[in-house]
């Protein structure tokens, strides 16, 4: 049913339709509305789940870990500092190969304290073994959560999935969203059937100990399955399209890239602005295209090579920075293109940190700077502030 709802409400409804048994979360801006809505839905009896209130994100993730280990579909959501506090448990959930879904609402990291959007928080979790999907708009956010449980619980995957959505820009924006029916979601997403679970009748220890004689092989398997999960992500996207009629690409989605000489790459909600800007530039006769990464982990290396094969220039927009190196996504795209006969220059524009708006002016500035040959730079810097000291 088509509804005009806030992005957070959309997430809550989508999660409810996935019938989680346990939800545990600690409220933190701008994730709060999602878990407020879910706790209300549980309290009203709209969904048959246990909502476990906790004193921290570390505990929220731990509750979910235990619940999935006991064979129960589980969900949490967090952002920013909460994501950092969860980090230890997030590695454990992935390491124990426990399927679950977390909404990673994207927000800047302290210090200085900032509650607004960038993607530093989830990018900091990129090496944990979680699959990371980034959504462009609220319809994709809703649909991505339903896909996420299916990807996560697939026997070939058994890895947790983080659905990343830009804080405020998506969470607090009202958009028309087509929310599927319970029957549709039930037909698409069967009940969770755990491969193994904690059971007093047949006791197990999960993730206990692996010494030097075994640990590498365990890590090899998680890497192998994470890389192979790309196929499942594409398969689930196609199944979803067949069932619901909506398609966002599998691991990538390209916009006007077929004859593009310059391809702009980014993740998340900024893609919408970039598409409009691309249309404007196209009207001026410039062959620009936009490539969206839906899936950052596993990293779609081969797909990026194919999608950028004909580009003469690549420009990556980064809402995060590896301090002391530079843009994370640009570095990985450069690595992905390395070793081919001809590789285009890959420019890196760090942009939109701490909620700074990314406008057509910002994109114009990036275009002129990269045309002038700048490789790694911050776009939209207020020089007057730096000079004033």
């Amino acid at each position, binding site marked *: 049913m088509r509804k005009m709802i806030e992005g957070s409400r959309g997430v809550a409804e989508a999660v409810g339709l996935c019938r989680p048994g346990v939800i545990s979360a600690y409220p933190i801006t701008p994730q709060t509305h999602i878990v407020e809505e879910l706790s209300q839905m549980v309290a009203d009896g709209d969904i048959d789940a246990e909502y476990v209130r906790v004193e921290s994100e570390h505990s929220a993730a731990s509750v979910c870990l235990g619940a999935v280990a006991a064979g129960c579909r589980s969900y949490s959501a967090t952002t920013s500092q909460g994501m950092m506090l969860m980090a230890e448990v997030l590695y454990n959930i992935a*390491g*124990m*190969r426990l399927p679950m879904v977390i909404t990673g609402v994207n927000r800047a990291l302290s210090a200085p304290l900032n509650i607004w959007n960038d993607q530093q928080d989830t990018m900091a979790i990129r090496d944990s073994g979680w699959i990371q999907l980034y959504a462009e708009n609220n319809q994709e956010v809703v649909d991505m959560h339903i896909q996420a449980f299916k990807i996560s619980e697939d*026997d*070939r995957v*058994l890895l947790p999935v983080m659905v990343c959505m830009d804080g405020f820009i998506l969470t607090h924006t009202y958009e028309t969203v087509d929310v599927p029916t319970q029957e549709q979601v*039930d*037909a698409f997403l*069967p*009940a969770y059937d755990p*491969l*193994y679970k904690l059971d007093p009748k047949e*006791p*197990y*220890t*999960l*993730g*206990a*100990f*692996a*010494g030097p004689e*075994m*640990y590498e*092989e*365990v890590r090899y*398997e*998680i890497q192998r*399955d994470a890389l192979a999960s790309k196929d499942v992500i594409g398969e689930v996207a196609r199944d979803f399209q067949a069932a619901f009629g909506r398609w966002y690409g599998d691991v990538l989605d390209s916009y006007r890239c077929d004859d593009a000489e310059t391809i702009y790459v980014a993740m998340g909600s900024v893609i919408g602005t970039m598409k409009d800007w691309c249309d404007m530039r196209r009207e001026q006769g410039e062959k620009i295209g936009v490539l969206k990464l839906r899936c950052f982990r596993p990293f779609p290396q081969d797909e990026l090579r194919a999608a950028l094969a004909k580009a003469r220039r690549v420009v990556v927009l980064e809402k995060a920075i590896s301090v002391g190196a530079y843009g994370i996504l640009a570095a990985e795209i450069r690595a992905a293109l390395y070793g081919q006969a001809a590789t285009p220059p890959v420019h890196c524009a760090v942009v939109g940190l701490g909620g700074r708006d990314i406008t057509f002016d910002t994109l114009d500035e990036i275009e002129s700077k990269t045309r002038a040959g700048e490789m790694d730079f911050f776009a939209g810097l207020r020089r007057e502030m730096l000079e004033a000291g």
Partner: protein
Amino acid sequence: MTATAKKPRRKPPLGIVTKPGSSLRNRTGPWGILRPEFDWGKCTGCNTCESICPEGCIRHLEKKQYEADTEYCKGCGMCAAACPFSAITMKEEHR
């Protein structure tokens, strides 16, 4: 929900699911280089060593006689440090 034929399942990922008893199966004694040596002449049978051992590997043989199970003793030395009668000495052991 549509009923479908049950799909064959994969093996659990390596090293994640452990059946009970692994701390008995994994002999951790070889990790250590020190072993407790018990002087039964000084021992009063007070049981301090047995109760403090974090591995639970000290056995009470008779009233004033204890010994460590070297298959599991990592040589941490807590028994020697705690013994009120200095009846335990940590000795280097080369395997």
